[in-house]
């Protein structure tokens, strides 16, 4: 009897198991297959905070969530339709993510006495039984046994056989969602090219899982999700940190500059260092410094030398860079500071996300030290915005803060990647050599954008000294003159504001150009806000949203956009930071915040609630 196939608009699946169970791989294979099937999608890995907590414990659970559909997908999903758990700890850690009435696929072999106790269930607990009485659909199977049976003939040692468990489960899921297995098969072949017997075993487990789903009456329904209507083109999957790496490579190429990247490892920023350190043949030098101070000051040295210079960190590491950022501001040299924000204060929750470093980026320096602040709104947008950061820093000789966060950094989405040619050009000009007979060189003489020349060592006739002391206008000599200081303070502010002339205008993302309520967001909340507003707007509410990627300065038209709405709501994963900037710059407009500081992204439904409430206020 063929199980009936139901069409679904969108589905969220979460794979969860012990760190050693290969859930990240399972998830990314399902993602690739889903992408090839033409669905729109968004994914989020959920790593344990510990490196490798003891097997079987809640602390050691590793998860991977994917949300895919035939409609536009903006978030990895508030809650999941299907939850795959390889052991008791995985269930314990993830049950709360399952929708009411959702499906649980449980590996019963992971629910023995020892597993229950490691997961800190009581000796009397029977969690699987409890599930059945809670309205969920529970599919129980002994994956270990099934995999071993499948691979009885493989001749592989038990350890290797058991490593194929995740493929068996993936096979079942492929069947359940009527998926093609080709891409995973060829992935396995490539991955284990040097170990054909391992490849064969994984492929057999995968296929047997599929067959098992088909043959047994495990599920009463199957699902199909039609391809989404997405813009035609060639796509790939990408995480935020990967996109950041590619953006730097692209800016290096398009600017024609050599790149210097000074960094010191810290979660969740380290992967940018890792990614860039592989790109030496792209003209990118990475320098793992002894600390964040050396990371940024070495970058300043490289920038003085004419390199496109960047530095990256998170949380505590950004704090250590602030003194040097201030130096970069007064030196007026190009420098990009990447902050992959994480939950604070102090060490906080390093593996969790937050948007609470905006005010630090805007104001967190001694003295008046204005700079440009950009924030990507999604994993793939990291490419665009880091590219913009590099373009602006070089074209305006001003430091640029790039505020990513832990959610964007590790989350992934399909990306219609650009070609080198299609990228906006980056215009860098080094100051020209001068003869001794010419007028003396003025390192702080500005052009009409208030930009001073980038005069790099090795250029005859431009010998000059820069430093952290206040400088006389034009000459750059040390000056303690009161009026000069006021003038220079205002020029630095003005120079930052000129950047607004060189960035795109602000757009409404969803909804009408004017109306009752505008939701203003920034950073990684983009997906949830857009989804929430889209749903409410389609239900007939007068609500729109706009998402700020340029935070300092704001796009020129932003103020007038705000004026076209009756109310403004500013949801942030912090205690109200963008709203402070808005209140300062638009004192005549009323702003309300929606703030939750839970280290996790907003759900679409909580935002819908918050927006509805505001609409009804």
């Amino acid at each position, binding site marked *: 009897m063929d199980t009936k196939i139901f069409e679904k608009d969108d589905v969220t699946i979460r794979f969860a198991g012990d760190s050693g169970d290969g859930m990240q791989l399972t998830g990314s294979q399902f993602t690739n297959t889903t992408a090839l099937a*033409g669905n729109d999608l968004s994914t989020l890995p959920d790593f344990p905070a510990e490196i490798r907590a003891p097997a079987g414990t809640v602390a050691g659970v590793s998860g991977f969530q994917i949300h895919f559909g035939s409609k536009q997908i903006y978030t990895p999903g508030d809650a999941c339709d299907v939850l795959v758990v390889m052991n008791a700890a995985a269930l314990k850690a993830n049950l709360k993510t399952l929708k009411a009435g959702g499906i649980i696929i449980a590996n019963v072999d992971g629910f023995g006495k020892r597993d229950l106790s490691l997961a800190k269930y009581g000796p009397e607990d029977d969690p699987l039984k409890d599930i059945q009485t809670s309205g969920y659909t529970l599919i129980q199977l002994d994956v270990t046994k099934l995999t071993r049976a499948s691979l009885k003939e493989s001749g592989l040692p038990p350890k290797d056989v058991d490593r194929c468990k995740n493929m068996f489960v993936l096979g079942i899921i492929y069947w359940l969602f009527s998926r093609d297995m080709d891409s995973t098969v060829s992935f396995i072949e490539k991955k284990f090219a040097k170990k054909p017997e391992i490849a064969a075993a994984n492929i057999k487990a995968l296929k047997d899982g599929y067959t098992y789903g088909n043959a047994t009456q495990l599920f009463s329904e199957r699902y199909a999700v039609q391809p989404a209507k997405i813009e035609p083109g060639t796509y790939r999957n990408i995480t935020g940190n990967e996109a950041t790496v590619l953006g730097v490579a692209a800016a290096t190429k398009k600017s024609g500059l050599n790149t210097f990247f000074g960094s010191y490892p810290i979660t969740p920023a380290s992967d940018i260092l890792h990614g860039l350190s592989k*790109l030496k*043949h792209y003209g990118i030098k990475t320098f793992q410094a002894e600390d964040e101070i050396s990371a940024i000051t070495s970058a300043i040295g490289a920038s003085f030398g004419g390199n496109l*210079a960047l530095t990256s960190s998170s949380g505590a590491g950004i704090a250590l860079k602030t003194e040097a950022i201030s130096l970069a501001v007064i030196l007026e040299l190009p420098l990009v500071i990447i902050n992959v924000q994480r939950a604070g204060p102090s060490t906080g929750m390093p593996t969790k996300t937050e948007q609470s470093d905006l005010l630090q980026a805007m104001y967190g320096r001694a003295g008046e030290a204005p700079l440009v602040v950009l924030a990507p709104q999604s994993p793939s947008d990291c490419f665009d915005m880091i590219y913009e950061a590099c373009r602006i820093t070089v074209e305006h000789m001003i430091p640029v803060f790039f505020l990513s966060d832990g959610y964007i950094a590790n989350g992934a989405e399909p990306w219609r990647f650009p070609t080198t040619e299609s990228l906006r050009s980056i215009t860098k000009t080094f100051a020209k050599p001068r003869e001794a007979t010419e007028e003396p060189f003025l390192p702080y003489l500005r052009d009409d954008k208030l930009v001073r020349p980038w005069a790099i060592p090795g250029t005859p006739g431009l010998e000059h000294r820069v*430093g952290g002391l206040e400088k006389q206008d034009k000459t750059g000599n040390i000056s303690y003159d009161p009026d000069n200081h006021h003038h220079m303070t205002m020029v630095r502010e003005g120079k930052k504001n000129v950047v607004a002339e060189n960035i795109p205008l602000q757009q409404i993302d969803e909804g009408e150009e004017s109306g009752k309520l505008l939701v203003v967001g920034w950073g990684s909340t983009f997906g949830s806000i857009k989804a929430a507003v889209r749903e409410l707007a389609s239900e007939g509410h007068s609500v729109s949203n706009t998402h700020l990627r340029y935070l300092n300065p704001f796009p020129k038209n932003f103020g007038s956009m705000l004026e076209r709405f009756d109310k403004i709501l500013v949801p942030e994963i912090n205690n109200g930071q963008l709203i402070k900037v808005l209140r300062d710059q638009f004192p005549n407009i009323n702003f309300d915040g929606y703030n939750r500081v839970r280290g996790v992204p907003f759900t679409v439904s909580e935002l819908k609630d918050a927006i509805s409430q505001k609409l009804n206020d």
Partner: protein
Amino acid sequence: MEVKEKQLPEYSSKDFSSDQDVRWCPGCGDYTILKQVQNLMPDIGVAKEDIVFVAGIGCSSRFPYYMDTYGIHSIHGRAPAVATGLKIARPELSVWVITGDGDSLSIGGNHLIHALRRNVDLNILLFNNEIYGLTKGQYSPTSPEGMVTKSTPFGSLDHPFNPAALAIGADAGFFARAMDRDPKHMRSIMERAHKHKGTSLVEIYQNCIVFNDGAFESYTDKKLRDDTSIYLEQGEPLIFGKESQFGIRLDGHKPEVVSLSGGFSKDDLWIHDETDHFKAYILSRFFDNNSIEGGFPRPFGVFYDVQKPTYEDQLHSQMNMAVEIRGEGDLDALLAGSETWVVK
């Protein structure tokens, strides 16, 4: 890295003097050092646009303003890090770091020892005046124990660093000591630092006439110095004293001052060998006010000079190798990655 062959103009020391008024206290030791650097520059065979002076913060760190080269007056303690980035970015430049004892050994100690271990080709001139000059007279990490300063009215309790020992412990490839009062010798040492490829650390005893006048008088005073100082010369025995009457010999691994009139001859003496790591370390311990040693003359000159691969050379050859093996990076291929799909 290409080495450019430039035709250099005939420089004079004046060509290296900027138009800025020098703002040290009259009589400050910094003046002599500046003069010797300006005097040396025409002779190192580098075009002036290829020279960069990088400083931290302190009286000494104002130095770059006075040099008509490229320069950065950066932030307190970070000059070695700024210079490291610059040198990595532009290995063909001649990069000089100017720093004080507070700048390099207090707040900046970590960057200094990391620069030394990495062996970036920087010439670091450490102006040691055993005091914080710019902030008007607090003790520094080289001030002797018991010193009364603005922040230690009851006397300093900190045991001071021995910069030579610290540097050698951090695997420095070049360490030398000079003094403001012997400009000719200082110039020759700075020239040696320039010639050494890799991080060269030169400690210069510099008199702060306002806050720590006479700190080094026993070594710099013409009347005293023959008995308290010893000048190191490669291949020469260690001899000192007004009448060259004293020598130093090694009894096993222990150094010993001997009288050349009292039974020992030159042949018994320690022959200076700049490439001997252990000897360099033992020399570093000729350090009064230091509980471990005492009674030895203070050495001046090059303690240690051994060439090792530099960080920036290795980095650039790694980059060249990457290009050789993988070809120049193809951005479009990188953007596409290994797995793509087409939506129609």
